[in-house]
């Protein structure tokens, strides 16, 4: 999932598995951490028949960057998912974790783990660009195995490239379901929340 030109189609292995897991759940609730994109909403509505909670963290990041308060983003995230406790079947994180300072990443992961129902699924992309790169990628679902990536300027830069061990530590409490390392160096990671024994 390299940034590359302003619009390109890339293959995704994680998306198909994610969709398959989510569509097995009745009337699922999905949180999308990206902007509201018509193509994605239409696709998810038709394919899964779900309720989508749009929580555009990229817009929130941009606003915090413009106001020079990115150091307060962790605090902001603490109240962003109020009322969703254990009510969410799936989360589409896209590559938002690449843009977060460690404290904010930790808070967000904790909030998402708390929001997920047992058996719920989380899909995230990591390492899709260079640290400091001031651009966001919009991921448009083309079909179950392909995404169109649209790159646009951002006020907020990428923070870091998370290693596999960092990712696993971040989502401690979830089970790793699948992890795919793409030729581009990007990683698609799928987690599931364990059911209580």
């Amino acid at each position, binding site marked *: 999932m390299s940034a590359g030109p302003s619009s390109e189609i890339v293959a995704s292995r994680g998306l198909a598995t994610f969709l398959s897991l989510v569509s097995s759940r009745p009337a699922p609730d999905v949180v999308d951490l990206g902007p509201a994109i*018509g193509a994605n909403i239409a696709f998810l509505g038709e394919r899964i028949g779900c309720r*989508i909670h749009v929580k555009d963290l990229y817009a929130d990041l941009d606003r915090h960057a413009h106001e020079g308060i990115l150091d307060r983003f962790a605090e902001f995230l603490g109240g962003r998912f109020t009322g969703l406790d254990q009510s969410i079947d799936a989360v589409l994180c896209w590559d938002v974790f690449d843009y977060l300072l460690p404290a904010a990443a930790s808070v967000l992961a904790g909030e998402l783990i708390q929001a997920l129902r047992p058996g719920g699924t989380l899909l995230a992309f990591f390492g899709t660009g260079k640290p400091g790169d001031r651009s966001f990628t919009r991921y448009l679902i083309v079909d179950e195995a392909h995404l169109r990536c649209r790159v646009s300027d951002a006020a907020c830069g990428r923070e870091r490239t998370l290693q596999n061990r960092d990712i696993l530590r971040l989502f401690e409490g979830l089970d790793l379901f699948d992890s795919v390392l793409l030729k581009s160096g990007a990683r698609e990671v799928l987690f599931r929340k364990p059911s209580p024994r």
Partner: protein
Amino acid sequence: MREEHASIGKSIVIKGEVSGSEDLTVEGQVEGKIELRDHVLTVGATGHVHADVAAKSIIVLGQVRGNLTASEKVDIRDKGSVEGDIVAPRVALADGADFRGSIDMRRKEPAVTSDWTVGGLKADVKTPTPANGERVSV
């Protein structure tokens, strides 16, 4: 036969409940509640709606703050803005549209209906059907 179509002009401000049995275009401001169960509500480019809306279809070119429920479709056009929760079987969101909230396109399981006649009175008894399709005894 000509379809009835009403409109609320740019300079009109309505506070309260708007309901009717014809299509409606809002170019002014409405605050409160709009109910057009079998008809189409269009919020025009100059329209400001601060209300919960229920209609057959809802088209947004202006600004809406409130929850939208449509039995057929919600269509948010380029430069249209919605802040609220949407419930509709189909939702179209144009590039350039602004949306904040949730979109519920979950398929409703049809309830199993049976008619009971007791002493000349007829009652519709709806038995809830869970998503897994199993019948529930009540």
